[in-house]
């Protein structure tokens, strides 16, 4: 009962705090940035610097852009350059600002039955294809899914359209896809940040990494206030400016899991 009352008071206080906060913006972002812990590391510094509170909704890049398109977020922070450029070209975003990058990694069984290991992702995928080894696809129009389809195309292969039995289109987020791959002992393409933060690895490990084709760029866009009048353009722009500022970039670079840096700032100055 005492616990319950304590909770009630805490909830009441947090409600008051959120009411009195000067400004709150909504940022639609991806699971890789949120679940890896980057936002938990980043936002306190920004909130301290600006007094602006940021609410993060973590979705796949495709869905996050859609939330922006409907005017349900003030800014969108994702990793699917082609879709982002379309978002801006269609007038839904003001401008696409590159912020940072990390990379994708091909994850697979430690025994590597398809013998896909190496530094060449195209050769690795071709090996998975010819071995008909189980492969888990996101299949959810996320940035990682788009990258995976691009890489298959570069390999000249198309297991998705062929409906190959070993190619499992799971229609799920990065974490659930990794859980599925862990249970099936299958190959899966992941962003490095989610993989590093992921705990249920079973017998999986990194099979292919370090190929320049696995480069994964993140960009941020202000949702166009001309399309949606209620967009909080000023504080949202402040968030974007801070991300690419010296301070923001330094905070991004300082985020580490087990000593390993997850995101590499590369905003153009």
């Amino acid at each position, binding site marked *: 009962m005492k616990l319950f009352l304590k909770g009630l008071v*805490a909830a009441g206080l947090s409600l008051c705090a959120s009411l009195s906060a000067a400004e709150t913006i909504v940022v639609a972002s991806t699971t890789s940035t949120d679940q890896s812990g980057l936002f938990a590391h980043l936002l306190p510094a920004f909130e301290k610097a600006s007094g602006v509170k940021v*609410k993060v909704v973590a979705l796949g890049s495709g869905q996050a852009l859609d939330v922006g398109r409907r005017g*349900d977020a003030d800014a969108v922070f994702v990793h699917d350059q082609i879709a982002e450029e379309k978002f801006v070209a269609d007038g839904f975003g003001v401008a696409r600002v590159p912020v940072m990058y990390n990379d994708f990694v091909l994850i697979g069984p430690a025994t590597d039955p398809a013998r896909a290991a190496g530094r060449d992702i195209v050769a690795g995928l071709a090996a998975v294809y010819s071995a008909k080894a189980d492969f888990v696809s996101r299949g959810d129009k996320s940035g990682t899914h788009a990258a995976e389809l691009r890489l298959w195309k570069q390999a000249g292969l198309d297991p998705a359209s062929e409906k190959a039995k070993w190619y499992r289109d799971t229609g799920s987020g990065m*974490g659930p896809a990794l859980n599925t791959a862990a249970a099936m002992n299958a190959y899966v393409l992941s962003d490095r940040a989610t993989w590093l933060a992921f*705990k249920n690895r079973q017998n999986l490990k990194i099979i292919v990494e370090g190929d320049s084709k696995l480069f994964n760029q993140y960009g941020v866009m202000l949702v166009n206030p001309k399309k949606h009048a209620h967009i909080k353009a000023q504080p949202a722009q402040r968030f974007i400016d801070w991300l690419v500022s010296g301070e923001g970039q330094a905070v991004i670079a300082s985020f580490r899991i087990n000593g390993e840096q997850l995101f590499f700032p590369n905003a153009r100055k």
Partner: protein
Amino acid sequence: MSLLVDSAAEAIRMVASADGKLLEIAVLSLRVSATATLIAAIIALPIAAWVAQTRSALKTPVVVVLNACMGLPPVIVGLVVYLLLSRSGPLGALGWLFTPSGMIFAQTVLITPIIAALARQTLEDAQIEYRDLFASLGLSRWQSLVTLLVETRFSLLVVLLAGFGRAIAEVGAVMMVGGNIAGETRVMTTAIALETSKGELALALALGMVLLAIVLVVNGFAHWGKMWIGRRYG
């Protein structure tokens, strides 16, 4: 097996240490689902009473539709409420998307049919039992109905608990409408989904145990309240 033991230990540790974040999430779960149950009861009980006593030709179709709506998939309710509350949707001006208000809205839509359908059946069954008595007392239809509501109050309490249970256990609607924002709209079920997707299976399971414990405590309070009223007012 060791996962279960680890999770149970983790669940006990979280509750015992009165983890601040956990409390906040648990309180939000309770607040959202209890409010939704209250609003749903206010909407559903009059509907149930009307359908139970009506002789209108509409009765059969309404009963069938109500019963069918007990099977509304939460994710569909979530999607529809999301589209309604979106800034591009008809109720966008409310600014309820990604807020607890939006989550209460979605859960209310989800459980109103459940409460209405179960309460309707409860009232109708009681009506058959009491029909002769009411006739001999010369009660009007509406007087009988009020008496029935009072007489079946304990069964109706269980109906409300069923609605509450459905609300606090669902994840599809609150995930979509609330957005699982840390410190804002994260409830027990969306936190469990999040930890599962991070591969933190023991933590996810521990949160599940805490959720079950909360539901158990709520039901315990309801039962204790019922006994107390029973003793006091016969």
